[in-house]
């Protein structure tokens, strides 16, 4: 592959990963801050998640009795899959050397690999909380998968490819496709799915510790110290990466090309940071006004998004712009 020896592309990819690793806690902190201000609280500041991480990483490593390596390695697998996704996606520049190694289906697969690792860890603890969280999480994941793949389908119709660079550059070249019914429906479907997959309101409340409503938090209840830090870091990175993906799939401006100059990379970095910040702010604002759905109402929401995705595909078939 010529892309593998392409130095600017490699640098851009490395920068992308570093930006996600460093920026994810700020995204989480920013969302908490927006929520706090809207609720009339002072809030802990945008940097609070970073301070939490530093504190957790210095704490004692605790192994709950009876757990196996599955529990021990799950945080690293979640974080690892997320880092890999960050390296594949065209966040700052298009020319990731891994772009041709994994298309959108591969990315979805990696995302689910991380989810599966955490659900197994929840079961591995052998507590009621762990099992409960895992059961709920895997049910949502199973119902999310059809929508994600159909949305991928809808998005890959205009670019005739499921590889991300092709989709993003097709949208950048034909911005008119963005206002097509297929694209809009796919956006809504994907947004719902990402909210479900990252455990935000109304599917899961990231700040709850009430056993009746916990999903993600129940699953990771036994984690403490450095491993908890890794899990929380990873879930922040997942959120960041997925917001970045949505941003660039539907607003691909500012993304540097395959062989970018230094300036283009910097513009790309600023552009994606701004897009993710705006999306995160919108998401956090929206969350203030809605309550968590009852668990058994979530499938209805997901069925709705599945229908939207199906319509998106059909629409992109019937209203396909001639190329």
């Amino acid at each position, binding site marked *: 592959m010529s892309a593998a020896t392409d130095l600017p592309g490699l640098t851009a990819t490395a920068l992308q990963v570093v930006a996600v690793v460093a920026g994810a806690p700020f995204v989480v902190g920013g969302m908490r801050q927006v929520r706090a201000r809207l609720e009339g609280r002072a809030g802990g500041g945008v940097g609070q998640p970073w301070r939490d991480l530093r504190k957790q990483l210095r704490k004692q*490593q*605790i192994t709950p009795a009876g757990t196996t390596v599955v529990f021990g390695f799950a945080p690293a697998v979640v974080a690892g899959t997320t880092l890999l996704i960050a390296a594949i996606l065209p966040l700052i520049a298009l020319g990731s050397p891994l772009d041709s190694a994994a298309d959108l289906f591969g990315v979805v697969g990696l995302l*689910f690999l991380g989810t599966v690792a955490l659900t*197994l860890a929840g*079961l591995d603890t052998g*507590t009621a909380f762990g099992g409960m969280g895992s059961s709920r999480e895997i*049910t949502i994941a199973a119902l999310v998968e059809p929508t994600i793949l159909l949305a991928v389908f809808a998005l890959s119709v205009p670019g005739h490819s499921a590889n991300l660079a092709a989709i993003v550059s097709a949208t950048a070249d034909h911005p008119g496709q963005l206002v097509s019914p297929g694209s809009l429906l796919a956006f809504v479907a994907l947004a719902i799915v990402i909210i479900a997959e990252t455990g935000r309101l109304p599917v899961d409340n990231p700040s709850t510790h009430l056993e009746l409503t916990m999903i993600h938090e129940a699953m990771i209840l036994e984690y403490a110290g*450095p491993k908890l830090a890794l899990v929380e870091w990873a879930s922040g990175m997942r959120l960041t990466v997925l917001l970045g993906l949505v941003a660039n799939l539907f607003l691909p401006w500012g993304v540097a090309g395959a062989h970018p100059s230094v300036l283009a990379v910097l513009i790309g970095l600023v552009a994606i940071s701004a897009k993710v910040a705006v999306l995160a702010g919108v998401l956090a604002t929206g969350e203030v006004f809605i309550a968590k759905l009852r668990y058994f109402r979530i499938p209805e929401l997901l069925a709705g998004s599945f229908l939207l995705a*199906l319509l998106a595909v059909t629409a992109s078939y019937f209203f396909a712009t001639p190329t």
Partner: protein
Amino acid sequence: MTTALDDSPTVPAPDQGLTAARQARGQAVLSGGVTAALGVVGVAFGLSAVFGQSWHLRIGWLLPLVGVVFDLGPLGGFFVAATGGVSIAVGIYAVGYAQREHWAAFTLVMLPLFVAAMLLVPAAGSVTTFLLAWELMAGASLVLVLSEHRREAVRSAGVFYAVMTQLGFVAILLALVVLSAAGGGDAFATISAHSGAVSAGTRTAVFLLTLMGFGSKAGLLPLHAWLPRAHPEAPSPVSALMSAAMVNMGIYGLIRIDQQILGPGPNWWGLTLMVFGALSAVFGVLQASVATDLKRLLAYSTTENMGLITLALGAAALLSSYGAHQVAAMAMTAALLLILSHAAFKTLAFLAAGSVLASTGLRDLDKLGGLARRMPGTTVMFGIAALGASGLPLGAGFVGEWLLLQSLIHSPHNNNTLLALMMPLSVGAVALTTGLGIAAMVKAFGVGFLARPRSAAAEAAAEAPVSMLAGMTLGAAACAVFAVAPVALSPVLRQVLAALPTVGGNEAGPALGGYLRLPGIPGSMSPGLIAAALVIAVLVALGLGRWGWRRRPVAAAAALWACGADSLSSKMQYTATSFAEPLQRVFDNVLQPETDVEVTHFAESQYLVEKVTYRTTLADPVERRLYTPVVRAVTTWAQWVRRAHPGSVHLYLAYGALGLLVVLVISR
């Protein structure tokens, strides 16, 4: 296992114990060794046939009039090689398993015979030979299913299996007889040469009959009901052979008769295959995700995977009939890849389930748990199989499912409403299948092997002997190759595809190099590179987690959080039933569970509850809706016919005379 005790012929006296053990060992080694050797022969012949060496053999004296004809081409070779591969792993495994479970001599003899019969089916070159081999395979498998016949459940499963497999055979027999009458000969080569002259009506009849017969063997809806009965009750190595190799013969039949000999068919053939495939996949995986019996779960997963393969086959046929040969070649390659990967991970899964069963006597996930510490080797093996079955990256099934999805989304749809509707719906079905498959496999692995033991039997589990682990290792190695280096299969798939002109065989299929490339479409993927990059990424993540480790106090173990109580009992864990409860509720309408809640109040006050009994049963709704009425109708009819033979010899003589008269009148 209780049946192991039942099946051992006599309890040997102490002085004879050593000799008897040595004899049992010798018999097991012989049986397993012959099975594995047959597997090696199968792989060798199969691969040589795939690469162009066609084998032709005619034994005239074996069957009167027509003789026995074997004719092994690339397609048959592919299935012979796949069956052979499964048999090698099962043969090695059976050496240990047969000793541990004290197999009777009869079972030991039937195991290699079953493998031999399965190897002969794809090698058959004529209708008669095919039917003979098919019936040998069905008979041998039936006998093996019944090898623990002292248990009631086994006998009932055996009857069910016998009836369904014979009804399927009748359908195939009718189809092939009609076909050979219309095609002017007994040999497949002759029929193939004259297939153009076969009338449309005959084609339709043959297609429908073969769909029924081969579909029941492959476990497609609604003829799947024997799988979740027979596979759990058969000894585990036999389950592995049936589930990973025998069901493939149904797919082989569909490809060989309907595509290679009769094809290309009208477009509704492909459409029908797609519909039945999608329904089977979704229904199978849904049942698997709520099943609590480990082997029943795996059996339903077989229905799911055969459904996906049939869907891919149907898509290839449909696309081909619309002239989209390139995408059809992709779909067909996906079908072939799925056959191989399913064979690998399902062999491994059933063998690992067999280890668990041999060690604990349990198949019920609700009573298992904690095996990761007690059977680490088996746990790793089942983990690899479960990863393969869930279709995630690094799993054996990923590449096949990826190709299937790619072929569905890249189907051309120009002005064709049928394709424009069918393909998105199929993608939805495949995606739902994958999602629920992940849930089913997380349940099987997480509840069955992780956490803490839920019963005394699971607590006392011990690791399987070396030969069983060796057999499983072989399956795991195959899974690993399919997962990260499908390039190894590329030459085989190319050859087989070239033998299937009606499903895109004239086109170059997808290039399975280090990068998987799609022909004519800008799309690629590299499972090997993903695996390598993921290893690096996980190492980086571990590095991130070590940040500041110098300042940490020494690591320690701590008790689990028990909400302030003293300790957690293992009964407080989630079980397989509770784990799948949300899914069961979501798919309430399809699964139709029957739930009884019985509340007993205290005599003093009806506001105080003394106890609550909760019972839920999940019967197969298709079975209840379709099979029960049929069985009832047959029984009613039999009762009615019974009136005609009250036991009077005079009446029977009258029947005979009447019958003779009718024959005479007709034949005059």
